[in-house]
């Protein structure tokens, strides 16, 4: 199957690619800020290649720029990356990668690749979504980190092009098809509210973990209603 065919027939591939472009472009901001925080070109690029999790990387350079020690930077970066462990479990359950694929899948397990995969219904699409978004973001993020570290702020703020709006729209687009019936709407509403409440109280990245825990609790408490017939979708 060639790329053009996939782009025509696979919604997950299209979703993955558009997310990769919208997110990957932010590598410019990271590269520029990383260089401004006092790190060398190789150090900034190593963070993108090895840590590869936007929130964790911004936290790392943020702590350094704020005068913190490298150890504190690594601690903050690790805390913000904990949710990736939950994502790993979900991708493991969906795709069951083996051997080297499992090791590669772990590296590209991030918000975007997980969201693209879990939003698809069949197995082949889940895999296409995960790998397109994961590898796509990885390649672009690292390229753009290099560009940003070299060019500094000359390229301007990606926000001015609405790329942060593209990310919001992409995540809503992935959530939307899941919102059929009363329970998914309730879970989404509660988790959004929990996130808003947690943002000012907890370090970035942690509110997502709290929301995941709340959703898991709702799922666990209702686990015996598994065989209940699907609720009829209420007309909008």
């Amino acid at each position, binding site marked *: 199957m060639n790329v053009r065919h996939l782009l025509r027939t696979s919604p997950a591939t*299209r*979703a993955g690619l558009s997310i990769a472009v919208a997110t990957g472009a932010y590598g410019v901001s990271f590269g520029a800020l990383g260089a401004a925080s006092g790190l060398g070109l190789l*150090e900034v690029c*190593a963070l993108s290649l*090895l840590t*590869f*999790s936007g929130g*964790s990387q911004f936290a*790392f350079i943020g702590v350094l720029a704020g005068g913190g020690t*490298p150890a504190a*930077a*690594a601690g903050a970066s*690790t805390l913000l990356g904990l949710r*990736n*462990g*939950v*994502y*790993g479990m*979900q991708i*493991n359950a969906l795709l069951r*990668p083996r051997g080297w694929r*499992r090791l590669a*899948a*772990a*590296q590209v397990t991030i918000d975007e690749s997980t969201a693209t995969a*879990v939003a698809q219904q069949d197995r082949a699409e889940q895999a296409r979504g995960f790998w397109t978004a994961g590898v796509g973001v990885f390649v672009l993020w690292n390229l753009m980190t290099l560009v940003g570290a070299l060019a500094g702020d000359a390229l301007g703020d990606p*926000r001015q*092009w*609405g790329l*942060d*709006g*593209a*990310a919001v*729209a992409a*995540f*809503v*687009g992935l*959530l939307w098809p*899941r*919102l059929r019936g009363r329970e*998914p709407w309730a*879970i*989404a509403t*509660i*988790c*959004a509210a929990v*996130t808003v409440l947690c943002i*000012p109280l907890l*370090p*970035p990245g942690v*509110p997502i973990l709290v*929301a*995941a825990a709340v*959703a*898991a609790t709702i*799922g*666990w408490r209702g*686990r015996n209603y*598994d065989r209940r017939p699907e609720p009829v979708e209420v007309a*909008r």
Partner: protein
Amino acid sequence: MTVWLWILGAGALAYLTKLSGFLVPQRVLESPAIIRVSACMTIGLLASLVTMNAVAAGQALALDARLLALGAAVVALLLRAPFLLVVVVGAAAAALGRLAGLP
């Protein structure tokens, strides 16, 4: 030199965190209760990601052009627009909002 050590350390910890989820045994993941919990978590994670991306600015809440993008994307979805168009509409709404002077 210590900076390099901590960069490598942060990279290793990030990778091990991601990998840990892949080491959960399949038979645990196959139980009906876990499948249900996982489906609920999926919705929770996506809803939380939408919220974080729409209103979080570090550890503060910020109302800015991203909310326009959220509204425009929802309208596009209600009109059954394809995914790519939803993303483009979101970006355009945020870009236009900033052009008009929104933060």
